[in-house]
């Protein structure tokens, strides 16, 4: 079961590879369009002080040189970087920062799985294996079997792949000088697309194509109601993975933006006065540390929630209400 789970992880992680590659090509446009807009709020504060519109333009431009870097750093921290040099190495990784950490985390997941499998002695896990086993058994019993039912074991490898990939990506992203690949909409899109395929497969493999779509609406509904129900259910089919995509992306992005913004308080207040900047250091570090601890919790919760919702949706299609 474990081996199957992590073979699927390979397939899972290989699938989004195409996505970030195209995203990386698109991202120079995205970052360029994002950064001037992000700079703008920083410019607006001094610009508001200058009451005349004519004085606003050169003033804002001059301020942009020094203040714009704060917003730029914030956006740079969370967006994909196509010119990424892994850990400061003297070469550019083709495909960008998020693709690099996607592959890195993929390798990490496989490594941890191999170590966990290798740690079994006389049928009992040792060390890392017992930690992984706890999570695997939890996902199997509490998520897969409970929400999908007796055929949940078939989907457990996929759900485990989701769980461990999202967990590791989020936890590894908290290490300084790294990035979170799930903070990229393309990566979460690929994960949600895999979840969508699994949901549809669950229905189609059990009832056939015609039966699957017939099951979308409950039987015995009056005909006028069908006019409303069918579009809603077809729409719901796509909103489910869409919600999965947005939820994971926004959670990962928001946490990292929060940590960076709190740490940015020090240079921003130091621009007002140096002593205020020094005074801000413990406050800023304390708040950033708090959010960081919260992010560890969020990593587990988001991995759990993504897996749980995938399982619920698979179960919904595998056992439609009649």
């Amino acid at each position, binding site marked *: 079961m474990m081996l199957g789970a992590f073979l699927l992880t390979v397939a899972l992680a290989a699938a989004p590879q195409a996505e970030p590659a195209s995203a990386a090509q698109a991202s120079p446009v995205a970052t360029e*369009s*994002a950064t001037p*807009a*992000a700079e*703008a*709020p920083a410019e*607006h504060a001094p610009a508001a002080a200058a009451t005349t*519109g004519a004085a606003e333009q050169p003033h804002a431009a001059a301020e942009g040189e020094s203040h714009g870097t704060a917003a730029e750093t914030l956006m740079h921290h969370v967006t994909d970087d196509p010119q990424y040099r892994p850990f400061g190495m003297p070469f550019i990784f083709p495909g960008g920062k998020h693709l690099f950490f996607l592959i890195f985390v993929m390798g990490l997941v496989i490594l941890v799985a191999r170590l966990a499998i290798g740690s079994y002695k006389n049928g009992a896990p040792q060390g890392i294996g017992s930690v992984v086993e706890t999570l695997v058994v939890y996902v199997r019993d*509490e998520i897969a079997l409970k929400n999908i039912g007796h055929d949940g074991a078939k989907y457990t490898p996929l759900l485990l792949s989701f769980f461990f990939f999202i967990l590791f990506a989020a936890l590894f992203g908290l290490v300084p000088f790294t990035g979170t690949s799930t903070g990229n909409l393309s990566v979460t899109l690929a994960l949600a697309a895999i979840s969508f395929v699994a949901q549809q497969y669950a229905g189609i493999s059990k009832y056939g194509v015609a039966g699957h779509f017939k099951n979308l609406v409950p039987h015995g509904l009056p005909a006028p109601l069908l006019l409303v129900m069918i579009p809603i259910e077809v729409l719901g089919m796509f909103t489910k993975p869409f*919600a999965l995509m*947005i*939820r994971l992306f*926004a*959670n990962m992005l*928001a946490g990292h933006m929060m940590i960076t913004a709190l740490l940015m308080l020090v240079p921003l207040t130091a621009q007002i006065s140096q002593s205020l900047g020094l005074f801000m250091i413990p406050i800023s570090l304390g708040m950033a540390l708090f959010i960081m601890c919260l992010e560890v919790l969020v990593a587990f*919760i988001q991995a*759990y*929630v993504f897996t*749980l*919702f995938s399982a*619920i949706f698979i179960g919904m299609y595998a056992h439609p209400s009649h």
Partner: protein
Amino acid sequence: MDNPTGLAYLAAGIGSGLAIIGGGLGIGKLAASAMEGIARQPNASGEIRGAMIVAAGLIEGATLFALVIMILLVIK
């Protein structure tokens, strides 16, 4: 209008605040009811917690939709 993009920032600020109020109220009410349920039936705490997380996830999802719209307003 001097600076129409300023209105977009204003809208994003007010909108994200409103979205957070809604989400906070929703999850707060949910957590309060779950606490009450656990206090009345401590042996059902596991099931109540599971159901609470599912509902919290759905509320959070709806809130995040709003927040993504706000982010789009700011970076466009």
